[in-house]
C-alpha cells in the first residue's frame, strides 16, 4: 500500500451487517489525493453500503474513518458534506418537488438580509449547470426533467460540494456517451486539483478510461486493490466474480428475422409525447431503440405498452386490430414492460422478492385465482436461480436488495408471465458484468424462442450485439432504421447527426 500521508481518506476494517446479510466484512479502503479510484464488484457486493458508511448515511458497526489523517465520524450526510465529501448516491437521490436550483443549493442557499436570495441562487445554478452544457429552466421542478438530467444535476451538486472527496455511485448509468465524456472531463479537472474521487460503475471501459486504481469487493469482503494499468480486463473480471467469465458480450451479429411481421403499428403516437410512427416487429426479432437523452425512447415504450394511451394510429397483431389502451389491455395481448425508472415504476418496495416476481402474473390471472404459495415459491426460486438474484431469501423486501438485483427481479416479474412481446427500457442499467452478459444472453435466448422484443439501451455496443434491427429516435420522432450489416455504432451515430443537420437546415 502507498504511504499514508498521501491518503486523503482511509477507511479501516469497516463492518456493516444487515439482518441475514453481512454487507461489509472488515473492509479496508484507501483513497489518495488526486486519484480516481474505481470501486468495483458484482451487484450486492457492498459498494453502495461502503459509500453510505463512509458518508454517515448508515451507522457502521465497526471500523474507523480517517480524513486527511484525522479520525472523523460523520453522523449524517450533512456532517459529511461539511467535511468536504460530496456524494452522488446510486439512483437519483434528489427531490423531485424542488426546483433544480433549490436541489443544487439545498442547505447552502445564498442569503441576503437573512432571506434566501432566489435570484442569486438561480443565477449561480445556471452558471453551475452551464459547465455541463445544460441549459435548463432552473426554477422548474426537478421532477419534470428526465432521469438523465436529474443525474447530471446530482453530479453537479456533488461536485460543487466536494472540497476533498467526490464519491460517484454509478453516475453514468443513465448517461449517454456525450455526457459521460463531459463528466470525465470534469472529473479530470477535480483530480488535478488534488481531490480524491471514488467512482463506482459497471462499465469496464469507463474504468479503464478514467481510473488510476481499482478496489474490488466481493460478497462484502475486500478482494484487493490494484493499479489500473497493471490489471487486465480478464483478471479484473475474475477478481469481481471469483471465476473466469466464459465470454463477455459476444459481438455475434444476430440474423435478421424472417417472415411476416406479427406486430404492426401504423401512424401510432401520442401528441406531446411521441410523434406518430410506423413499426413492424416479427416474431423472434429484437428491435433496438437508439437515441440521445430525451429523444423520446421511453415515451415510445410507454405508448406501446399503453401506459400512455396512444391518440393516433392503429395496432395490429397477426393482422388483427388490437386494443392497447392500458397496461392491462397490453398484458392481455401478452405484452410485458420493464420500465426505466425502477424505483418509482418498477419495484413494489415493501413487498417481498417473491411477491414482486409473481405480481404481474397474479394481476393477469385476476384476484379470484390466487397463485398457490407453493407455486409462488417455485416461480420465485426459479427466477432467483436463473437470473442469479442475490438475496438472503425470497421473503426479503425487495427494496433492501442492491440496485442491480432489483432490476433482475423486475425482469423476472415479466418473464413469469411468459410474454410474447417484451419491452425492455434500459434493462442492463446498473447491472454488473456477469449479470450483464447473462441478460444479453437471456435476450438472445428469448428471441430464439420466438419472442418479439423492443430493447432500449444507451449502450450502443450492447444494442448492436443483440438487435436485429435498430430504430434511431431524435426529438420524439423516428429518424432512421438500420438493419443487417448497417447496424454499427458508426452508422447509428451518423444517423443521429444527419437528423441533426436536417433539423438545422
Amino acid at each position: 500500500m502507498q504511504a499514508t500521508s498521501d491518503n486523503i481518506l482511509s477507511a479501516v476494517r469497516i463492518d456493516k451487517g444487515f439482518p441475514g446479510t453481512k454487507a461489509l466484512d472488515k473492509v479496508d479502503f484507501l483513497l489518495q489525493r488526486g486519484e480516481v479510484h474505481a470501486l468495483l464488484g458484482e451487484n450486492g457486493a457492498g459498494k453502495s453500503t461502503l459509500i453510505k458508511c463512509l458518508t454517515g448515511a448508515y451507522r457502521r458497526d465497526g471500523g474507523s474513518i480517517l480524513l486527511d489523517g484525522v479520525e472523523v465520524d460523520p453522523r449524517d450526510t450533512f456532517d459529511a458534506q461539511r467535511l468536504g465529501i460530496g456524494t452522488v448516491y446510486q439512483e437519483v437521490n434528489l427531490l423531485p418537488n424542488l426546483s433544480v436550483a433549490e436541489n443544487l443549493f439545498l442547505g447552502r442557499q445564498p442569503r441576503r438580509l437573512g432571506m434566501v436570495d432566489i435570484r442569486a441562487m438561480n443565477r449561480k445554478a445556471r452558471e453551475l449547470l452551464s459547465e455541463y452544457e445544460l441549459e435548463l429552466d432552473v426554477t422548474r421542478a426537478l421532477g419534470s426533467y428526465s432521469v438523465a438530467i436529474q443525474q447530471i444535476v446530482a453530479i453537479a451538486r456533488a461536485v460543487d460540494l466536494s472540497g476533498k472527496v467526490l464519491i460517484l455511485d454509478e453516475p453514468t448509468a443513465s448517461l449517454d456517451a456525450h455526457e459521460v465524456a463531459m463528466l470525465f472531463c470534469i472529473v479530470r479537472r477535480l483530480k488535478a486539483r488534488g481531490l480524491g474521487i471514488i467512482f463506482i460503475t459497471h462499465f469496464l471501459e469507463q474504468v479503464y478510461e478514467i481510473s488510476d486504481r481499482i478496489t474490488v469487493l466481493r460478497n462484502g469482503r475486500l478482494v484487493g486493490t490494484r493499479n489500473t494499468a497493471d490489471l487486465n480486463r480478464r483478471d479484473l473480471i475474475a477478481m469481481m466474480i471469483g471465476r473466469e467469465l466464459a465470454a463477455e458480450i459476444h459481438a455475434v451479429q444476430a440474423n435478421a428475422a424472417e417472415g411476416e411481421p406479427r406486430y404492426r403499428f401504423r401512424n401510432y403516437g401520442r401528441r406531446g409525447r411521441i410523434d406518430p410512427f410506423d413499426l413492424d416487429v416479427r416474431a423472434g426479432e429484437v428491435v433496438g431503440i437508439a437515441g440521445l437523452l430525451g429523444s423520446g425512447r421511453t415515451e415510445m415504450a410507454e405508448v406501446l405498452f399503453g401506459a400512455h394511451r396512444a391518440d393516433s394510429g392503429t395496432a395490429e397483431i397477426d393482422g388483427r386490430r388490437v386494443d392497447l389502451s392500458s397496461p392491462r389491455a397490453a398484458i392481455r395481448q401478452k405484452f410485458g414492460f420493464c420500465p426505466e425508472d425502477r424505483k418509482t415504476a418498477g419495484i413494489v418496495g415493501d413487498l417481498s422478492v417473491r411477491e414482486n416476481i409473481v405480481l404481474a402474473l397474479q394481476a393477469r390471472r385476476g384476484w379470484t385465482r390466487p397463485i398457490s404459495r407453493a407455486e409462488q415459491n417455485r416461480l420465485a426460486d426459479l427466477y432467483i436461480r436463473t437470473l442469479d438474484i442475490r438475496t438472503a431469501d425470497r421473503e426479503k423486501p425487495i427494496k433492501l436488495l442492491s440496485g442491480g438485483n432489483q432490476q433482475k427481479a423486475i425482469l423476472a416479474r415479466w418473464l413469469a408471465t411468459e410474454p410474447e412481446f417484451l419491452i425492455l427500457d434500459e434493462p442492463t442499467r446498473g447491472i454488473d458484468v456477469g449479470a450483464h452478459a447473462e441478460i444479453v444472453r437471456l435476450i438472445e435466448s428469448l428471441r430464439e424462442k420466438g419472442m418479439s422484443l423492443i430493447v432500449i439501451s444507451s449502450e450502443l455496443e450492447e444494442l448492436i450485439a443483440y438487435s436485429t434491427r435498430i430504430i434511431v429516435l431524435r426529438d420524439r420522432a423516428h429518424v432512421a432504421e438500420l438493419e443487417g450489416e448497417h447496424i454499427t455504432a458508426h452508422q447509428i451515430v451518423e444517423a443521429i447527426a444527419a437528423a441533426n443537420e436536417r433539423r438545422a437546415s
Partner: protein
Amino acid sequence: MIPILRTYLARLLPQLIALAAILIAISMTFPGFLNLEIQNGRLYGSLIDILNRGAPVVLLAIGMTVVIATKGIDLSVGAVMAICGAVAASFITSGHSLFETLLITIAVGILCGMWNGILVAVLDIQPIIATLVLMVAGRGIAQLVTEGAILTFNDPGLIFIGSGSFAGLPMPVVVWLVFGILVALLVRRSALGMLIEAIGVNRQASTLSGVLTPVLLIAAYMLSGLSAAIAGIIAAADIRGADANNAGLWLELDAILAVVVGGTSLLGGRFSIAASVLGAIIIQAINTGILLSGFPPEFNLIIKAAIIVFILVLQSPRFRAACAFLAIPRRAAKTTEQEAK
C-alpha cells in the same frame, strides 16, 4: 402450518401484550373486572362489555384497514354509519321486512363507499379530502332521513341484532367475529390482499404490472362502506333508534387509531385485519376501563391520551430496536429489519 401460525403470532404479539397489560391494569383497580357469569343464557361481565361495545369500532377498523393498506383513509365512516342507521330505521318503521331493510341499508353503505372510491380512484382526489366531503354532507343526509329526531323502532328482529345473543355471545360480537373472519379469509385466501398491498406501496408500479388499480381502490372503499353500514345497523339496533346526530360521531378517528395501534402503517402496504381488530379492542378496553375507574369525566381524555402514547411508544420501531438489543439476538435481527423499512 405451524410456522405460519408462529409468524402470525409474532405479528400480533405487541398488540396482545398491550391488551393484556391494560386488562391487568384495570383488574387491579377494579377487582370484579375479569368475572364472567352466565345470565339469561348469555355471558355477562365487563370483558363481554368490551367486546360488545367495541363492535362499531371493530367493524369500522376492518374496513379502514383495507382502505389504509391502499394508502388511503376514510373519514366518512362515522357519517355513513349515521346514514345507514337512519335508513334502516326509516325502512323498518315504514313497514318493510327485516330482510329488505338490511339489504337496502347495506346497499346504501356500499354505495357511499363507491362514491368515495370513485372520487379517489377515478377523479384522483386525495383520500382525506374526498372522504371529508361525505363526512360533512353525510351527517346532513342522515338527518334529512330522520329529520333531526331519533327515529325509534320496535321491530324485534332488528333489535335482536343489537341486543340479542347467539351461542352465549352478544349479537354484535357474533357479527363482527363473522365479518372479520370473512374479510380476512377473502383478502388472504384470494390474491386481493397482495394486490391491495402492492397498490398501497407503489400504485404506479402496480398499474404498470397490470393490476386493476381503480377497481381495487373502489372495492376497498366499498368494503369500508359495507363495514360502516353494519356498524350503523348495530349502533341503531343497540338503542332501538337511529340517532342521526350522534351515531358514529368522531368514530372515524377511533377506527384509524385502532388500525394504527394494530400496527398497520398509514403509508399503506402491509396490513393485518386481526391486528386491527385487536387494536379496536384495546381502545375499547381503555374506554371501558376509564368508565369503571370512577375518575371524574374531566380526566377521561388525559388518561386515554397517556395510555395511547404509552402503547405507541412501546410499538415504535425505535423503542423495540432498543429493547431487542437486550433480548435474544434473533429477535434483534427482526426489529432492525423493520427499522430499515
